[in-house]
């Protein structure tokens, strides 16, 4: 356990020194501050428009961070062979993967805390307020990004950095489209096809279930237990990917 925390702490230190992190943070901060102007330009519903743009900026910055820092973290170490320094120490390869995932999760959390701070200040400036719904929306974006980080880590164990980045973006796109699979229409094409479609939709991630931004901003009721279900689903999915990465990385010939 201690070795996992050591790797996590090391990964966290390494990522917060990464220039990409600061570029993404600056981008998010600029968009969030600019969203005050977007709110003003919308003439009506200033707070809602600002909230929507702010949450979208947090989501996009989280995604960029998860993909580029997540993929680069293991891939760059393998390609530059600095992973050997860690591999020769009495640390299991599974611990390296789990530690890297935890470290990246912490970096993502720090990113969200900082952007949330910008968001809150911007919201207060235009007379809005922070409520539980907004906090839940930010929390779910973070969980969604944990799944993306786990996927980035998984792909970087099986291929090089560029391909892993492309596969992670593909994973995100499939995850966002998964919600559109129409199981009722599939039923009309026969039970075999319906079963196949259902299996595919269950295996692929459903990233749309982490997106409650519009419900929160436009005060649409959210089903009881939906947020808890989404968090559990995200943690479970990320855990599955981290386990798969650990297994593949343990057997990998470095």
């Amino acid at each position, binding site marked *: 356990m201690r070795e996992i925390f050591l790797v996590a702490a090391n990964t966290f230190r390494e990522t917060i020194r990464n220039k990409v992190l600061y570029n993404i943070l600056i981008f998010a901060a600029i968009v969030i501050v600019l969203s005050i102007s977007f709110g003003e*330009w919308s003439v009506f519903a200033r707070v809602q428009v600002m909230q*929507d743009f702010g949450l979208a900026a947090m989501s996009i910055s989280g995604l960029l961070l998860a993909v580029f820092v997540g993929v680069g973290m293991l891939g760059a170490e393998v390609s530059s062979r600095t992973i050997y320094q860690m591999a020769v120490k009495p640390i299991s390869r599974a611990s390296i993967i789990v530690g890297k995932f935890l470290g990246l999760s912490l970096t993502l959390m720090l990113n969200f805390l900082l952007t949330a701070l910008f968001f809150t200040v911007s919201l207060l400036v235009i007379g809005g307020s922070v409520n539980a719904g907004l906090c839940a929306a930010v929390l779910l974006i973070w969980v969604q990004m944990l799944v993306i980080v786990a996927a980035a880590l998984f792909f970087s164990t099986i291929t090089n950095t560029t391909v892993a980045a492309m596969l992670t973006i593909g994973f995100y796109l499939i995850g966002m489209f998964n919600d*559109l699979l129409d199981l009722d229409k599939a039923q009309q094409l026969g039970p075999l096809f319906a079963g196949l479609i259902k299996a595919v939709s269950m295996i692929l991630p459903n*990233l749309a279930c982490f997106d409650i*931004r*519009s419900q929160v901003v436009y005060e649409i009721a959210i089903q009881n237990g939906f947020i808890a279900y989404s968090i559990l689903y995200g943690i479970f999915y990320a855990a599955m990917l981290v386990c798969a990465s650990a297994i593949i990385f343990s057997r990998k010939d470095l």
Partner: protein
Amino acid sequence: MRGIMRAVSVITILAALFAAQFSFGRMTGSFGKEKLEMFSDIPVSEKIAPLLLGYKTTYANYLWIRTMLYFGSHYHGNKDFHELVAMTDIVTKLNPRFYPAYEFAGLMLPECTDRYNEAKTIVKRGITVFGSEKIMLPFYIAMIDLNRLHDTAEAASYMMTAAKNPMAKPYMIKLAATLLSKSNKVNLAKEFLYDSYESAENPAVKRAILDKIKSLN
């Protein structure tokens, strides 16, 4: 020294870009004039929604901002609002819970364009989304029917919908009754007023309804 050289290079490139832009503007004669408006990027259908990957409402908000900028610039300019209906329409299709767009469709579209039926369609979409939550939407349709389309019967029906809302103002109830009687439905007007009188709790509202019943008799 290297840093200074880099900064000088960046400034030189920026200055060259600005100069190129300026001279191109002068050559084409467009510098300082109103920019050419481009609407080819505005989607014509809400079918684009799945491609927006969860940023549907954000994109709708962006389009709404463009709608407001378009409205503002033309309001102070040539008063040509031919893109306004399509822009408001797509905003409400992509973000059906964006209430200001329906208010804009109900109030400003009939004022700025002559596409009254399209404005009505947008407001009707709002009624479907919000139901009785937004009392003013059927009122706006009634006003379009009455003042623009001169269809008193249709106006009466929408005004009655607005007036039946528990939050309806007394003037809406009186207006609905007037419109019903003007469209030769005096009995229906009286029936509606009696029902409204029964359901009203505010004494001032009850008094206003009673006065209207007396005037119809």
